[in-house]
C-alpha cells in the first residue's frame, strides 16, 4: 500500500524515494500498532480496567504470585487453594509464557520506577501483544508477497474481530500472546525458507519455544510445518533451504519444548508430535537422495535409488510399527481429548461431556464466520489465487495454513482465532494485488491518453514500462535495498530465487492485465467501500460485542445505565466475611474467580483436570439436600455458591448449566440418571418438572424464598413460574444473596447433636406444621 502514497518516480531520486518509502511504511506500521492497541481499549473505556471472565483471573492470580514470590517459587508452586483436598501443582501444569511475559514486563517497569500494578500490566498485555502480532503479520506477509501486502495484512489483523474477541484489554489469556508467537514463528520459518540462514533457523526454534510456553495450540505449528515440508518435497521443491528451515526446528524446538514442565516428555511421547518426527526422517532421506544424486552419475543414481527406496521403506515400516505400538499402548491412543475432538468432531460430545460442556469447544455456526472475519471470508479465495501466481515456497505455506485453519475452525469455535491471521494474510495479499492491478491500469491508461495527444506512440511503451515496473515492483526494490543494507552489516547476501522470476512475471502480467480506466476506478472505489465496511464492522464488534468483561453486566434502561455487579459483590463478601481457610463449593465455572477474587479454597475450578472431582460436585448439586450435605461435608465444604439469574433474567446461570452437572455427575456416579430430571426431553423447573428435579439441591438453592419476591415465583430466564414455591432448607442456611440475587451463598449447617429420641421429637414438632402445608401443594413430598 506504500506504493500508492509514494510520489511519482520522476520527481526525486530513487534513493530518496526508497528512504521515503521505508519511513512511510515504518510510520504506517506504527499507526497500525496504535490502532491495534487502541481498538482494544473499548472495554476499559466502556467498563473499567479490570480482568475479564474466567481463565484470565487464574492467569492474573498466577502472575500475582510470580511477581510476589519470584520465578523459583513459581515453578514449585503447589496451590492448595484449589481442587481441595487434592491441590494442584501450578508450576508444572500451566503454560507459563503469558505469566512470565507479564511478570517480566511488570518487573522491568518497576525497575525503572514506573509503579504500575500487576493488574494494570495484565490488563494491557493483550492489546500490546496484538500490536506485536500485527507487526509480525506484516513481516510474514512481506516475506510472502512483498511489503504492500504486508501492510494491508497487518492493518487487517490489527482489527480482525476474531482476534479482538480474545485480546481486548483485560482479556488476559494465553491466546493474547500466543497469536503473536504463532505468527512470528511462521514468519521466521518462512524467512529461513527464503534465506536459508541458520541464524533465522535458530531464532525460529526460540520463537517456537515461546509459543510452546504460551499455548497448547503449539501443536498446530508442529503439525503444519511438517505438512508444508512434506508438500514441498512431494511437489519437488526440496532445497537445502528447506532442510535448514526444518531440521534445526525439530531438533532444537523439541529439546526446548521438553524444557517446559507442562509439556515435558509429551514433546516426544504423544501422537501430536509424531508427524514432525516422521517428516524429519523423510527430509533426511530426501536430502541424502539429493546428495547422492549430486555425486553420482545418472546411471549409478538409478541403482542407488532402488537401494535407498528399499531401505527407506523398511525404515519407514519399522517407524510406523513403533508408532502404532506406542499409540496402541497409551489409553487414549496417545491423543489428548481436545486433540481427538479436533480430528473427530463428534468424539467429545460422545465420550467427554466435560469438554463438550465448554461453549468455546463447540463447532461454530455460519454467522459466527461472518461475525468474526467478516469480509475477509470473501477476500480469502482471491488471496489464494494470488498465492498461486506464482506459487513459491512461502505462498504455498500460507495456502496450506489457511486450508488447515479453516478445517480446525470448523471443528472448534475457539480455533477461529488461528484462522483469523491466515485470513488476514490472504486478504491482505488479495487487496494489495487488486490495488496493484487497478492503480497500474489507471496509471497506464492515463499515461496513454496523455501520450496519445503528443502522438508519440513509440515512447509510450518505453516510458510506461519502467513506470509500471517501478510502481509495482517498488516494494520489492525497497526490500532489496533493505537487504543490501543488512548485508553490509556482515550478513550473508542472499536473494530468494523464487522472488526474481515473480517480479518479472508480475511485470509481464501487468501489461496483459490492463483494465479500462472507468472499470478500475469503480473497482477501486468498491474495494475502498469494502474496506470501510470491514472497519465499521470491526469497530462495532470491538465496541459492542467483545468488550464486556462478563463479571460486571450492564443494561441500558430508560432511566440510564444499570450495572449488575453481583459477582464481585459476593466475592468481596466471601473474601471479607468468611474465614481464610473456608472451602467454597460451586460449579467449576466460578472456581478461578473465587480463588482470585475471594481468595477462598474451592473444590473444582476451570482447569478441568479431574473429571471425578467435578462429577462429585455435579452429583452433589443434583442430589437431594441430605445426600448433597453429606457429599459437601465429606469434602470439608463450608459454603456453597450458586449463580441464579431468574430474578433479573441472566441466562447463563446454574440452572441452565444444570444439564452438564447431571451429565458429568452421572458419567461417574451412575445413580444420577439424566432421565430422572427430564420431562419430555427437557430440563423443566415449572409445574411439569420431575420430582427429582424439584428436590435436587440446585433447584432448592436457586429458588429458596424466591416466591417471596413477587408472590408467584416467576423465573425470567425460563419464562415460567417455578414448580415448587414454598419449601424450607434443613441442612443449608442462606448467608448471603447479592443485590440482584445473581449469586446466592449458603452455609452448611453443623450436624445436629445425636440425641436420638429428642432429635426425632423436635423434627416431628417443627416439620409437622410446615411440611403438611407444602404436602398439600406438592404431592411428592
Amino acid at each position, binding site marked *: 500500500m506504500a506504493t500508492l502514497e509514494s510520489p511519482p518516480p520522476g520527481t526525486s531520486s530513487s534513493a530518496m524515494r526508497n528512504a521515503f518509502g521505508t519511513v512511510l511504511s515504518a510510520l504506517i506500521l506504527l499507526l497500525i500498532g496504535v490502532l491495534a492497541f487502541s481498538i482494544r481499549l473499548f472495554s476499559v473505556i466502556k467498563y473499567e480496567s479490570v480482568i475479564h471472565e474466567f481463565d484470565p483471573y487464574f492467569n492474573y492470580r498466577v502472575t500475582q504470585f510470580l511477581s510476589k514470590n519470584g520465578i523459583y517459587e513459581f515453578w514449585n508452586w503447589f496451590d492448595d487453594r484449589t481442587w481441595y483436598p487434592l491441590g494442584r501443582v501450578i508450576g508444572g501444569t500451566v503454560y507459563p509464557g503469558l505469566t512470565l511475559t507479564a511478570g517480566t514486563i511488570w518487573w522491568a517497569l518497576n525497575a525503572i520506577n514506573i509503579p504500575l500494578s500487576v493488574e494494570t500490566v495484565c490488563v494491557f498485555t493483550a492489546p500490546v501483544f496484538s500490536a506485536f502480532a500485527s507487526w509480525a503479520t506484516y513481516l510474514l506477509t512481506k516475506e510472502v508477497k512483498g511489503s504492500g501486502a504486508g501492510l494491508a495484512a497487518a492493518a487487517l489483523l490489527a482489527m480482525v474481530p476474531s482476534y479482538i474477541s480474545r485480546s481486548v484489554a483485560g482479556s488476559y489469556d494465553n491466546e493474547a500472546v500466543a497469536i503473536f508467537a504463532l505468527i512470528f514463528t511462521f514468519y521466521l520459518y518462512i524467512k529461513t525458507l527464503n534465506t536459508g540462514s541458520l541464524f533465522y533457523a535458530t531464532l525460529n526454534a526460540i520463537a517456537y519455544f515461546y509459543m510452546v510456553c504460551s499455548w497448547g495450540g503449539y501443536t498446530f505449528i508442529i503439525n503444519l510445518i511438517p505438512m508444508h515440508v512434506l508438500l514441498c518435497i512431494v511437489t519437488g521443491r526440496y532445497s537445502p533451504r528447506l532442510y535448514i528451515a526444518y531440521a534445526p526446528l525439530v531438533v532444537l524446538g523439541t529439546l526446548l519444548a521438553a524444557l517446559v514442565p507442562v509439556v515435558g516428555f509429551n514433546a516426544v511421547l504423544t501422537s501430536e508430535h509424531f508427524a514432525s518426527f516422521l517428516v524429519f526422517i523423510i527430509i533426511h532421506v530426501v536430502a541424502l537422495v539429493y546428495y547422492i544424486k549430486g555425486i553420482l552419475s545418472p546411471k549409478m543414481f538409478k541403482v542407488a535409488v532402488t537401494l535407498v527406496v528399499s531401505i527407506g521403506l523398511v525404515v519407514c515400516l519399522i517407524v510406523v510399527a513403533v508408532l502404532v505400538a506406542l499409540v496402541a499402548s497409551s489409553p487414549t491412543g496417545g491423543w489428548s481429548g481436545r486433540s481427538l475432538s479436533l480430528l473427530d468432531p463428534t468424539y467429545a460430545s460422545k465420550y467427554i461431556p466435560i469438554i463438550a460442556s465448554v461453549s468455546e469447544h463447540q463447532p461454530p455456526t455460519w454467522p459466527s464466520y461472518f461475525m468474526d472475519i467478516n469480509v475477509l471470508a470473501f477476500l480469502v479465495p482471491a488471496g489464494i489465487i494470488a498465492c498461486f501466481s506464482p506459487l513459491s515456497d512461502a505462498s504455498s505455506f500460507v495456502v496450506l495454513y489457511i486450508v488447515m485453519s479453516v478445517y480446525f475452525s470448523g471443528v472448534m469455535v475457539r480455533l477461529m482465532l488461528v484462522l483469523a491471521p491466515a485470513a488476514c494474510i490472504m486478504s491482505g495479499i488479495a487487496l494489495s494485488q487488486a490495488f496493484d492491478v487497478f492503480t497500474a491500469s489507471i496509471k497506464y491508461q492515463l499515461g496513454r491518453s496523455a501520450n496519445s495527444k503528443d502522438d508519440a506512440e513509440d515512447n509510450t511503451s518505453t516510458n510506461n514500462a519502467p513506470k509500471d515496473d517501478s510502481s509495482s515492483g517498488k516494494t520489492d526494490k525497497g526490500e532489496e535495498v533493505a537487504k543490501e543494507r543488512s*548485508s553490509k552489516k556482515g550478513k550473508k547476501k542472499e536473494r530468494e530465487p523464487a522472488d526474481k522470476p515473480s517480479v518479472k512475471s508480475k511485470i509481464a502480467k501487468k501489461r496483459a492485465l490492463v483494465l479500462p480506466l472507468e472499470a478500475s476506478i469503480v473497482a477501486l472505489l468498491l474495494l475502498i467501500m469494502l474496506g470501510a465496511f470491514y472497519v465499521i464492522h470491526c469497530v462495532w464488534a470491538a465496541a459492542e460485542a467483545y468488550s464486556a468483561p462478563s463479571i460486571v453486566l450492564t443494561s441500558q434502561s430508560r432511566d440510564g445505565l444499570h450495572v449488575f455487579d453481583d459477582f464481585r459483590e459476593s466475592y468481596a463478601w466471601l473474601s471479607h466475611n468468611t474465614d481464610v481457610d473456608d472451602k467454597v463449593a460451586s460449579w467449576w465455572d466460578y472456581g478461578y474467580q473465587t480463588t482470585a477474587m475471594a481468595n477462598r479454597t474451592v473444590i473444582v475450578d476451570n482447569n478441568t483436570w479431574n473429571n471425578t472431582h467435578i462429577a462429585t460436585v455435579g452429583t452433589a448439586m443434583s442430589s437431594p439436600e441430605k445426600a448433597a450435605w453429606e457429599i459437601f461435608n465429606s469434602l470439608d465444604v463450608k459454603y456453597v455458591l450458586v449463580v441464579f439469574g431468574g430474578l433479573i433474567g441472566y441466562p447463563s446461570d446454574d440452572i441452565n448449566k444444570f444439564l452438564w452437572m447431571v451429565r458429568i455427575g452421572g458419567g461417574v456416579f451412575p445413580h444420577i440418571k439424566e432421565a430422572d430430571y427430564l420431562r419430555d426431553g427437557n430440563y423443566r423447573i415449572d409445574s411439569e418438572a420431575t420430582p427429582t428435579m424439584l428436590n435436587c439441591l440446585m433447584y432448592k438453592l436457586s429458588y429458596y424464598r424466591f416466591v417471596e419476591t413477587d408472590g408467584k415465583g416467576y423465573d425470567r430466564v425460563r419464562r415460567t413460574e417455578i414448580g415448587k414455591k414454598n419449601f424450607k432448607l434443613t441442612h443449608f442456611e*442462606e448467608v448471603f*444473596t447479592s443485590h440482584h440475587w445473581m449469586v446466592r451463598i449458603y452455609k452448611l449447617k453443623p450436624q445436629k447433636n445425636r440425641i436420638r429420641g429428642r432429635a426425632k421429637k423436635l423434627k416431628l414438632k417443627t416439620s409437622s406444621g410446615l411440611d403438611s402445608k407444602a404436602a398439600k401443594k406438592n404431592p411428592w413430598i
Partner: protein
Amino acid sequence: MAARNWIFAVAVFLSLSTFSSAQDLQIVNAERRIDLSSHIVKAFLTLKVENIGKDPAADMLLAFPPTQIKNLAMVQALAVTGKKKKKIYLPLDVKPSEQPDAPNDAGYFLVSFATPLGPGEAVTLEVLYILTHSLEPFPVEITQSESQLVYYRDSAVVLSPYRIKQQTTFFKTPSTRVESFTSVEPANRAGKEIKYGAYEDRAPYSYAPVIVHFENNSPFAVVEELVREIEISHWGSLQITENYRLTHGGARHKGVFSRVEYQSRRSISGSSSFNALLAVLPPRVNSVYYRDNIGNISTSHLRTGFKKSELEFEPRYPLFGGWKATFIIGYRVPLEDYLFEAPDGRRYLNFTFGCPLVETIVNKLTLKVVLPEGSKDPSAVLPFAVNQDLQVKYSYLDIVGRTVVVLQKDNVVPTHNVPFQVYYTFKPIYMLAEPLMLVSAFFFVFVTSLAYVHIDLNIVKK
C-alpha cells in the same frame, strides 16, 4: 458504693502531700451532658471552678477513669468569659498529664488557664471530651430482624481530683427505648434523657458506676485502618488516595442473611446495618474514583459544591455487625487551594487531617504526605500529638525518591478534621528533571539509531 468511695478518698489523702494545688481548687458546679446517640460518645462538661487556696492556680486537672482513658479520642476545653449574651469562648491548652500517684490508674489531662486563677476567683470552663468504642453491644450477637442494644458504662458523678459542690449528669439516648439504667438516687428518665443528680458536695474522686442499657441503631462504622496518601505535584494538583478497611463495630450478625427480608421489610430488618456512607471531600475535587482491589464499585454519587463536595457511596454489600469491607477512594484537587508559600520562602501544604467519612471512628490513621522529588527539610505542624516519621517513595521515573512525611495517629474521630501544615523547601528547577530525562532518553535513542545506520562495522569493504 460507699466502700468504693472510701477507697478513693483514702487514695486521695495518701496523695495529698504531692498535690499541692489539688485542694486549692474546688468545683462549685458541674453539669455533664453525655450524648449517646451515635457510637461516638460526646460528653459536654460545664465546670465552674473556684480557687479557694492562697496562691494563684495556673492550671487544673481533669481526671478520667482507666476504662475511659484508653478510649478517649479528644479533650478540648474553653474558658467562658462575659455574661449571658456576650459570652466569649477562649480555647485553653489541654495536654495529657502523668500524675505519679494516680489512684486506680486514673488518667489526667492538664488544663492551663489563660490567666492564673487568683485566690477567691472563679472561672467557667466548657470541656468537650469524646469517647470511642464505649458502647458495648449486649446481646453480643443479634439476628437480622433484631435491633441493637448497647451498654454504656460511666459514673453518675464526675470523677475529679477536686471537691464538687453540686453536679448533675444527663445521658441522651438515641431513642426512647431504654432497657434499664442503674439508679443512683436521685435519678430519673424522661423521654430520651436520663438525669442523674443533682448531687451535693461530693468528695474528690467520688465514683458511682452506672450502666445504661439502650437501643442504638446508628451505623457503627469503624475504620480499622485508614491510610491516606497525599501526593503533591507541582504541575498543579494534589492526588489523594485513601485506603479504607471498614468494619461494622456493633453487635455481631448471627445466622441467616436473607436478601428478600432485607429488601422487602427494610424498616424492621437489619436496622442496625448500614449500606451507605458519606464522605465530605474538598470543594474543587475532581477525578474521583471509588474502587476496591477487585475493581470499580459503581454505587456512588458525587455532589460538588462551593464549600464542600459530598461523596455518597455504598460498599459492595450492606454491612451487618462484624462484617468487613475494604475500599479505596481517590481524588484530585487543584494545587493552588492547598499549597502556599511561607514568608521565609518555604512552601507549605495546608490540608485537613482526619477521615473524610462522616460519623466514623478511625482506629489507626496513617497520613502520608508525598513531597515532590528534590524537596528538603520537611516539618509538620499539627494542633495535637501524632507520631511522625520520614520515608522515601519511588514513583514515576524517580531517581533519588520522594520524601514522605508519615503522620500516624490512633483513635481518630471527626473532631480531628482540622487543618495541618507540612513545610518544605523546593527548587522549581526539579520540576523539569523528569521531562528532561524523557527528552534526553528519546534523543539518545534517535542518535544511537542514526549512528547505527551510518556506521559500517565490516572489516572488509565490499
